């Protein structure tokens, strides 16, 4: 209650309509529901029931891939001397290993055996772990470098001139050629593979992001901020990056699954991870020669790779949709 209210005199108390007091300060305020960006994002995101299902599925795969290998250790060459165990279909494998419990529980053979008597099921679990690790690490490195550099690249004109020359040269090197030559040069261990995928992988993201930043840099409100003397890091952090959250998530949605596909692709070409690391790409490329003869070796890894990539892609797309403020109405 304040002074203004007391000044108003009520002339006729019997009147049906009572004039309410005029609050000068309150009337200056704009009444709107409290808006929290991330809350709205998740409200929209979880409105779609399919997203909950996809997350549950992804968590399941994630847990199996990371906890599974503890209980189901995969040794690629464990049955290398057991010639009769090669290329066994699931039913034959179950029958074959029934009286050999020392070689593992029967669930191990539920998907049959591969070309040197290796368990397909355990192989897939360990390979899924490699694939998920690889894609997460590569995406994280490329995204962080790409977005940070892209933001500066888009904002600073001097930096832009230098980076454009570098980009125009490196973008001309066919990506596949570069990766294959690098793997050929530095070897095919897990970390050298990560290096090969990230050494120029960020460049495309940075370039894409640069263009997005440039568009927003020249918007009126950014111009106003700059006129008022806001320091550049603050303009980038407060004016530009929040606007680009949905762009970042969209990039993430295509980046994450792409490394899984790429690993498969490179393994098939003989430039994949080294033989000691279980990977989906290696399983597929080993099985592809006899994929009509021994389909149980070929299709399970393909389906797992497809499932992981589709889930990641769909989740990313839906999150990107939800993180666009225009859908928050």
């Amino acid at each position: 209650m304040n002074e203004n209210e007391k000044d108003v005199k009520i002339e006729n108390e019997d009147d049906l309509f009572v004039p309410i007091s005029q609050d000068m300060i309150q009337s200056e305020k704009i009444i709107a529901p409290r808006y929290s960006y991330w809350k709205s994002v998740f409200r929209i995101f979880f409105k779609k029931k399919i997203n909950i299902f996809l997350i549950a599925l992804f968590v399941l795969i994630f847990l199996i891939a990371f906890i599974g290998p503890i209980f189901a250790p995969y040794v690629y060459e464990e049955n290398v001397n057991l010639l009769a165990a090669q290329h066994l279909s699931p039913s034959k494998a179950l029958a074959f290993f029934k009286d050999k419990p020392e070689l593992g529980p029967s669930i191990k053979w539920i998907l049959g055996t591969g070309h040197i008597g290796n368990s397909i099921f355990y192989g897939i679990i360990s390979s899924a772990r490699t694939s998920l690790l690889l894609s997460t690490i590569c995406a994280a490195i490329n995204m962080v470098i790409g977005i940070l550099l892209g933001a500066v690249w888009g904002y600073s004109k001097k930096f832009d001139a230098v980076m454009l020359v570098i980009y125009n040269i490196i973008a001309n090197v066919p990506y596949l050629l570069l990766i294959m030559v690098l793997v050929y040069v530095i070897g095919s261990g897990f970390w050298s593979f990560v290096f090969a995928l990230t050494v120029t992988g960020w460049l495309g993201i940075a370039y894409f992001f640069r263009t997005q930043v440039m568009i927003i840099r020249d918007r009126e409100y950014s111009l106003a901020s700059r006129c008022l003397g806001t320091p550049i890091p603050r303009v980038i952090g407060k004016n530009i990056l929040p606007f680009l959250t949905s762009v970042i998530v969209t990039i993430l949605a295509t980046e994450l699954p792409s490394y899984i596909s790429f690993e498969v692709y490179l393994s098939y070409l003989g430039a994949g991870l080294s033989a000691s690391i279980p990977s989906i790409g290696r399983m597929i490329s080993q099985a592809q020669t006899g994929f009509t003869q021994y389909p149980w070796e070929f299709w399970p890894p393909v389906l797992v790779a497809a499932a992981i990539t589709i889930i990641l892609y769909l989740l990313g797309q839906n999150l990107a949709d939800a993180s666009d403020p225009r859908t928050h109405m």
Partner: protein
Amino acid sequence: MKVYMLKRILFSIFSLAVVVMIVMLLVYSLIDRKVIFQTDDIWNKKFLNDRTAYEYSQYEKFGYMTTTNYGAYLKDIYKDVEDYENDARYKEDKNAVKKKFTFLESDGISAFIDKYGYLQMDKFDSFLFNYYTEKKTKRVNEINKRIKEIENTKEPASEDEKRRLGNELAALKAELPVLQKQLDERNYDSDSQYVKDHELIKEVDVFLENESVRGFVEKYTAQGYKISYLEPVKYSNGKDKPGGSGQLYAIKERFVLWRLWDYVKGLITVETTNDVNDPNLTDRYIRFENDPNGWFAVVGSGTQHKYLLYFDDRFPFIHQNFIHLNLGVSHTRYRGEEITNVITTPQGSMKNKNIIAANGEIINTSINVHSVKYSQTAEVGEELKNMFADNYTSYQYNFDGLSRIENSFVCGIISTILAYLLGLPLGILMARQKEKFIDHLGNVYIIFIMAVPSLAYIFMFAVIGTTVFKLPYSFANSTRTIFGTQTKLLGYFLPIISLTLPSIGGLMKWMRRYMIDQMNSDYVKFARSQGLSEGEIYRTHISRNAMIYIVHGIPGAILGSLTGAIITERVYGLPGVGNLLTEAINRHDNAIIVACTVFYTTLSIISLILGDLLLAKYDPRISLSSSKGGGR
């Protein structure tokens, strides 16, 4: 605009050079060069010095270094001497390197020669003294470290172990004062090896006493070569071990910039009438001639090829031999073949044709008359004598199949055209039916193509194609008789389908996206308010504007089909260019790797420039040069 294009082309050439240099650096400097012998049978069959000599010759072929050997040098010196092979002096010179010299067996001398070469013997004393000082200091440190280690060891496990350690400690402690004394007095004369090295270095003088050996060493040291003497390895009875005879080489590493320069210099060659080096050939010309096996031809004399421009019944019907592209020579994958030939030579089985020979006779043969090259002495079998009138007799055959690049291009171009013909209308349809059944169905397909590894769906197409449609799976087994002729036509079906379906997905995605973006524009609302029909709005307004974004990628898609499709070609066994790079990497064929880089990079640069030009042509609002506001 012209200035812009000129700048852009210059920059493109610059970046091409940088890219090739990066790849050359990667391939030639970072990879252990010994890997090229991993799959080499000849290397496995050679031993000792012969193996090293073979390695040098391979390194030279692969472009790592330039080498010369003593034998070639001797032949050059004695080339004026009649029957020099039996000349006594020649024999003596030749055997000078095969005598038993063992100076390289000493570490000190090989280190010295590595550093200073054979000619700076005055530096030997000081070098050897420093070398031994370093070696002995190192040894002293080592001994001290080891003594500490042994003294700190807790109770050894067994008696044996204890005794062994005790002995070692005693030996070390005995060695230490001797070394220390030598180092303190700066006098190593009590070291027998040091004295022996001084004896051995005299052998180098004996080795260089032979005039020819000395000449060889002096000549190539002056040119910056490193002299590599492969000492003879002998049995105790004085005979050489297999591959162990002494040899003398001069080697020089190639610097990456020179390698690049040599490569660029030889990249394009133009045939001239002075190409043939034959004094007997006096009549040199290039002229039009009537070609009995074609229409007319530009024929050269003195050029390498006879037919410089000719017509025949093979696509693209007009062929030229004026300009040649030399991408290098393959070493391991296609031993000794030129990479340009690997890409462009037709494959398949030989094809017979009726041709009109030079004397007017009609001959049924598989010889390609247009491929003839000059040979110094025309050696042709009797039955072909009447076919060639001149020295242009070195011929190739006609084949019924397509070349690698044609295979790739045929598949690529057909699938690109199909993809654009189907993908764009489907994208437009999805946009028009937004949020309806067709749109959802299309989205499922797009997500499938985007997310599933390409390898997986190519195999899926293969399974469906072979089981449901009974199409041949592997290209090699695809020969069928259609309309009475044997043809591999059916073999192209699955590769083309496997290339088309994914590109349709990509095009659908982008076309739909751009259409939807345009659908809410003001000009669309205006057109609607003017009473235009929906079909007209979509056809003439929205899709035209949405096409702006699509147009940019068209040149890339067309030129990209020249680079082949790696996975598709591999899965179906289609002999194309797509697998060239991966095969080269697996076989360590450096020349093909560099050639592929040049080829791919050039294509990607050209398609970017063409894409921009097409974009500027299609949309007049876009100006390529950065000067704003039009006018100039």
